[in-house]
């Protein structure tokens, strides 16, 4: 028993350490996928960009990552995928990714605004001009709020 208790305490410490490792690994992997997709898209390789963004979206968000942080990362990926499909003329597929992104929640930030603008573009491409106009108006409202904050020198709330 003299050996078992220190071993169990070590195991407990390891478990606590592993718990912090998962969010760290998730952020690092998401950043790597995002950067690779950016490089691929800049090089005109949309398929490679879609693969990396798909991998980012397929990766499960571990416990310990704030829901809002996960939303930001995944909404950005959804918007980029939707824009690629829209650029290829597939408004329906673009709309699916917009919906998937907005189902994560809506914030008053660039990521949600981008998705709303992409949805407006998809509406426009499908001839739904009124819906498109509504989306652009919402995006403009978010932009104004962000400008106000920027002028006020505020950072977006949360933990440093």
């Amino acid at each position, binding site marked *: 028993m003299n050996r078992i208790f220190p071993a169990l305490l070590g195991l407990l410490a390891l478990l606590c350490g592993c718990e*912090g490792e998962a969010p760290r690994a998730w952020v690092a992997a998401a950043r790597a996928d995002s950067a690779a997709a950016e490089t691929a898209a800049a090089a005109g390789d949309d398929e490679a960009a879609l693969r990396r963004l798909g991998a980012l979206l397929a990766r499960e968000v571990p*416990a310990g990552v704030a829901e809002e942080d996960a939303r930001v990362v995944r909404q950005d990926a959804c918007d980029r995928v939707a824009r690629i499909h829209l650029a290829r003329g597939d408004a329906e597929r673009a709309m699916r990714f917009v919906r998937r992104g907005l189902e994560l929640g809506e914030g008053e930030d660039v990521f949600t605004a981008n998705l709303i603008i992409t949805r407006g573009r998809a509406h426009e491409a499908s001839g739904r001009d009124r819906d498109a106009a509504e989306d652009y108006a919402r995006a403009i409202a978010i932009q104004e709020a962000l400008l106000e904050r920027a002028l006020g020198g505020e950072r977006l709330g949360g933990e440093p």
Partner: protein
Amino acid sequence: MIEDEEITDEERREAEALAHALERGSAREDLPEDALQTAALLRYGRDGGALPPDRAEAVLSDVLEAADRIAARTPERRRPPRWGWVLGAVGLAAALMLFVWLRPRGPTTATALPAPDPAVLEARLAGDDARFDDAMGDYRGAVYAALEERYGAR
């Protein structure tokens, strides 16, 4: 007189058991209760219940044999197996893991993200994709840097 044919096997066994009891002063399992009482009375009437030394020796050897047989049948008292400790340790470890994973956690607060460059949404709304990609790329990098700082990915 009772004819031999009339004696049943059961009666024969009882008679043998009674003879054994009278001889040895101890009863076998097949000796019925009333025969046991009879044997005891007969033995008591004969010698007051005292056992002669040669019969005492015989009884003792029977007792010792029986004790040996019982000892041979009784399994050795086993020490707790070593794997018992291992199982206990595994169980405790599992309990610790459950504790770590299932313990109540407070809501995780969002990371403070840097304020975006106003050019990001301006370019997007204007449909200037090249400018938007540049500005958004920079902002995305700043957001990931903030997340890495928060979650210690560097």
